Structures are given as C-alpha cells and as structure tokens.
C-alpha cells in the first residue's frame, strides 16, 4: 500500500493523511475519535454526510465520509445532523395521494425544480424527480425512485425551498407499501393457519426429537429447486 500523503482541512484545520484513506479513516488517522458523524461505516445509515470543496474550485461537493476518498487540498466538514421538518402521522389513516403530501409537507409545493438536491445526493438518487412525483400524487414512483435513500440529510442541507426531502421519501415508501402495493394473500392465509394451530402437532413432534433423529430428517430434506 502506498504511503503517499495528502493535506486535508478538517473544518479548516490541516492534517497530513495517507492518500488512500476514506474521509472517515483519514479523520481517525488524524486523531479524531467519533461520537457523532460515524455509524455503520458502510453506506447504510447516513450518519456521516460530508460537505467538501477542493482547491481552486468554488463548487461545494458532498459525500459520505465512510465512502468518499480524501483528495489533496480537500476542505471538509461533516454535517452529522440536519434539523429538517418531520411530520408525525398515523400511517393507517392516510391516503396515498398528493393531498396527504400537501397536508403533511406543504413545503414540497415550494419546490423550484432547481435539481440541487439531486446533485447533493451521495446515493445518486433522482431526488427532484421523486419530489415532483410526490407532489403530483404519483406515490408509487416517489417510493421507487427514493428507495435507496439513507436519510443523510444532504439534499435538505442544499434545498433553497427548505424541503426535507428524505422525510417525504420515507412517507411515500410507507404509503406505497401500506396502501398501494397489494397485500400478500399467502401471508395472510399462513398467519391464520398458525393461529388456528395447524402446525402445533408437527412442531411439538420435532421438538421432542433427539439430535440423531433430527439430523436424519435434515439430511433427507427435499430442497426446493432454484429455477
């Protein structure tokens, strides 16, 4: 592994760090021990949203500290928390319509369609597209487009209309899954069968079996074909 070094500026303060590290590991190398701003370390939790700029470039870029590699002359700051608006609701009582969005998140209708949110998404989600879909009442599309959202908040941090996109996205996915996607009928049926005790006897028999008998049954299982 090379030990080529880079200078990074953490909240303005310079540190020399190996070039082949992520921002998160580089900050640890520099001596930081995270309490905030570090979560799953694998791009699933959105705890480490980071804003940065590189030398001779006025543009602000974003990324997840656990995924983004350091660059020489990188100026960075984590945004470990963003205080965006979040509605409270009872999912059972909502309808999957634009009226619901209007009621819970009226600021969505202030969207300027500037697309800054999309550019700010470290997951490459079409953020503006799903916000537009949500305000049109196309909840299914909003749910589908926003599926990979980690709720890191970087979109909201850049939004001139002060929308908390990620909270809208979560609402849309729950609305879609609860009120649009058809229920799994086989699941409903199985829940009833279990409640009626259909499998009680068979389970009781299995529980009584010693290891040898179980192992014999296990070895003789028929495996469902993968086709």
């Amino acid at each position: 592994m090379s030990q080529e070094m880079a200078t990074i500026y953490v909240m303005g303060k310079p540190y020399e760090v190996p070039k082949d590290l992520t921002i998160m590991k580089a900050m640890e190398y520099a001596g930081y021990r995270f309490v905030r701003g570090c979560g799953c370390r694998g791009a699933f939790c959105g705890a480490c949203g980071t804003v940065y700029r590189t030398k001779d470039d006025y543009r602000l870029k974003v990324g997840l500290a656990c995924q983004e590699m350091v660059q020489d002359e990188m100026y960075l700051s984590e945004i470990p928390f963003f205080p965006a608006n979040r509605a409270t609701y009872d999912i059972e009582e909502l309808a999957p319509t634009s009226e619901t969005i209007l009621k819970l998140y009226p600021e969505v209708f202030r969207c300027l369609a500037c697309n800054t949110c999309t550019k700010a998404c470290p997951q490459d989600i079409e953020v503006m597209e799903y916000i537009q879909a949500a305000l049109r009442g196309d909840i299914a599309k909003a749910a589908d487009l926003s599926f990979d959202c980690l709720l890191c908040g970087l979109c909201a941090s850049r939004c001139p209309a002060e929308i908390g996109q990620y909270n809208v996205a979560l609402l849309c996915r729950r609305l879609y899954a609860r009120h649009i996607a058809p229920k799994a009928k086989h699941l409903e049926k199985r829940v009833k069968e279990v409640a009626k005790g259909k499998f009680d006897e068979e389970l009781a028999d299995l529980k009584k079996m010693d290891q040898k008998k179980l192992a014999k049954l296990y070895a003789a299982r028929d495996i469902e074909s993968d086709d």
Partner: protein
Amino acid sequence: MYYTPEMLESMKRVEETREARLTQELELLDPLEKVELLETFHPDYLEEIFRKLKVGPSKGEMTPHEFADLFEAYSAIDPYKFDLSQIDYDVDVLVVGGGGAGAAAALVAQEGGAKVLISTKLRMGDANTMMAQGGIQGADKSNDSPPIHYLDVMGGGRYFNDPDLVEILVRDAPEVLAWLEKLGVMFDKEADGTMIAIHGGGTSRKRMHAARDYTGGEIMKTLRDEVNNRGVEVVEFAPVYELLTDGDKVTGAVLYNMETQNYLVVRAKTTILATGGAGRLHVAGFPTTNHYGATADGLVLGYRAGVPLAFMDTIQYHPTGAAYPEQLLGQLVTEKVRGLGGQLVNSKGDRFIYELETRDCEAAAIIRECKERGNGVKTPSGYQAVWLDGPVIEARHGAGTIKKRLPAMYRQYQRFEIDMAATPILVYPTQHYQNGGLKIDGTTETTTTNLYAAGEVAGGIHGRNRLMGNSLLDVVVFGRRAGEAAAGRAASIKKPGKLTLEHLKTFHDELKDAGIRRERVSPMLLPDYRRPETVRKRLEVPV
C-alpha cells in the same frame, strides 16, 4: 480500479471458466465432511483465540479473549461512592438500544400501556439491523411451513439451538412479516402482492424475503419512523453504563450522556437489553461487517447483573466480506449475491464448494482454499481472498439483474470503479454475528428478574451457527415478545424498586479475588481507531 498482474491473470481464468461453471452442479457436503471441514478450518476451533472466564455466572466457560477482557473488567463507576439520589427518568419499561429489537420492543410495550424510554448509544436506528441486506425469513408459501423452517434452523445451528426459542422464531415469523407489511415496509413483491423469495445458505425452501438489498434498512427506517410517530421517548448518545438492582432484581439503569459527560438515573420497573452484537471487538483480528457501536455492552451489563451466557464460544464469520479494495475491507457482501446464483471461485477459476452451504462451512471452505490449498488470490496489501463471481448472475437471470436486485452492492463497488455485473470481486470471511449471548426464556426474560434481552445480545436461538435472514427475523420476533412481556410485568409491579449498585459491589469483589487488575474497565462503548502514537500522546486535562 488497480489490479496486480497476478490478480488480472487470475481474473482471466475466472472469465474462461464462466460458461462451463454455469451448468456445473456441486454436491452438498455430507455430515461427516462438514464436521471435518469445520474442525480443521473454522476459527471457532482455534484454541488459542479462546480462554476460560475467571469470574461471573458463566465462570469456567470459554469465550474469545476480546470478550473475556470485557467480562473480566471493572465498571468505571465506584459502587460505594456513586450518587443515585436524583432520578432523571421514571418509567415502566426501559429499552436499552435503538436498533431493530429495541424499536420493536418499544412499540409493543407502549401498545401494552407502558410508559417507555429508549436509551441508545448513537442515533436511533444506528444498528446492525440498518445494515442487514439480504433478507428476512418466514415460512409463508404453500410449499413451506414453520416446521420445515424449524428443521432448517436446527440443522443450521448444528442442533445446539434451544428448541423452545426456535419454535417461537418460526411460529411468529409469518405474523411478524404481516406486521411489517402493515407498517409499510416495502417488500419485493410480484404485481399481485405475492412476496418474492429466494434461497439463502441452508434453506430448503425459498423463504428469503427482501426489500432489494436494503432489507434491514427498510425495516429499521420504518420502525424508527413509527417510534417517532407514536411519541416514544428516545435519548440518543446516552448508552446505559450500568444496570441498577435492588440487590436481586433489576430496577433501572445509569445512562451516560456521551456529549456532556453527565450521567442520568433511570428508574424502570422492567428493562430490556437490546444492545446488539460485538463485531467491533475484532475477534482474532478479523475485520467486521458490524456497526461502529457493536461493542458487546449489553452482554457486559447483563453478565454483571448475574445473567449466564449461552454459546459465547462461537462467532459467525460471514464468508463473503469485502477483501479488496482495502477501503471496503471486512464490509458485507450480502449472501443474496450467492442466493441469486453468484459463485465462489478460486485463483485457478474453479469452484470449490456449493455456494449455499451454511455460513460456517462456507467460511471454513474459503479459509481452506487460501490457507491450505494455496488457491487464494493475493491482494496488493498482502491479504488472501477468493473470487465471488457476479457476472454468472447476469448470465443466468439476464443483464441488469445485479443493478436491480443488489443496488447497494452495485453502488458500493461502483464507487471504486468496479462493475460487479462485469467483473468478479474479492472476498474473505469477516466477523459478522455473535451466535451466542445472554440466556433467555421464551418470554425473553433472563435469569435476573425484570431484566429481558432481545436480538443479537441474546443467545440460544441460533445454536452454533445462524442462517441468513434469521437475524432480522429474530430481532423483530423477540423484540416484540420482550416488549409484550416487559410491559405486562411492569403493569403488575405496583411499587417501584430500590436503586442500588449492590450487584456491582459483589462483582467487583469477585474480580479482586480473581486477581484482575483495576485498570481493566468495561463496557467499551466505542472502538478506538486512532493510531497508537496518537493515543500514546493523549493528555487529559480539566478544561
């Protein structure tokens, strides 16, 4: 992405054998082969990484050194001097941990009429649940049943599992899936609502339900949203640092606010430990797939309060941790890749094990391939690894399958300019799951009265090896059970308990008698990834 000439050469062989491998059928291991493979190559059989516990309710039992170091350690709290006179929170149920089990427990406890407080070390939802990718099991199809699921779980755990807990797991599974569906978890479904399900390692039926490859994330985000919607009180960045007892029963806890360094006293009629796993202990130096906060805190707290351990001499190493690029080292490459037909291939381009054996066998087989047979691929930093071939998935299920069914994985590698759909990736086992944990009964109560445990912190359900998709199931099944039981018990307790640290005095005495140095302190709370030279020059001053 940079590859050494040796890596490129081997990659070429993987490409050459791909077509033949598409139709190649490999046999499942027979029980004897399995035992031999595990005993020779699984890290659970490396004696030098374990030691016997010197103190506590499971004294004499074996556990990895990294765990023993935490069990055989003092609290930073001096039980003789600590002031518990000011109670900051007075609740029915205290839920310790804000992951899947904690959230499920809190929701159900509140439904049961309890006043609930969730204490969590990091943010609500910062947990291994959030990172679980592949799926959640549940026998809901017509060709499947809870008894068939039961047999898969027992065989996977090599028959060491607690039958009562396994029964609960498989019996509750359909109801739990229905509960999640109703809460608005966006499961992968056919147009008519039928759940799309695939195989996982060791399943005899396709019962792996998924939400693309963000299954745990989707579940966690939904449960957290619901916790917020229902107004459950949550204190973030405030882990439990010690439990409180009346000398016998658990009566509350001391929280440590990591941002202000203050402590807070909670009086609770019942307490649920849902603190998750321990990957950040890095057993035997393995990297881990786990969350930053996975440091075994709940195990330590429960152990000091008298709860014995189950199966703490077995750790699950996920067979396919990322081995290259270095930046991803140890991170999860979901089993769903193999569930969809991805193949394990050695440096010569040959498969060496059927890909859907249980995880313990897959991990052992990869270690054997690298350590004994010399068929590993060497990465630039000197690690050995084997290939996980994704392009066979595209060949089998059509172009674009990886991007559609494995978006998280695909994106993860794209960030390093590796196209998983076109080239194989390098993998090696990584510390993934704590098979054991605190002993619980069917209601999730521990042997210490009014203390419950659910999720990864609890042990016995998975025996000596957990199957994919049974952990997400476990956290929701037993989280809900814990919430129900803890709320029910709390309702029957009229007078709140006395708050003392008597159990800690006893435990400290035991440590002293065993000759354990006072410097060793736990719980750990967070791992330390600073350089040793930085830590050495640390100066603590009052400011």
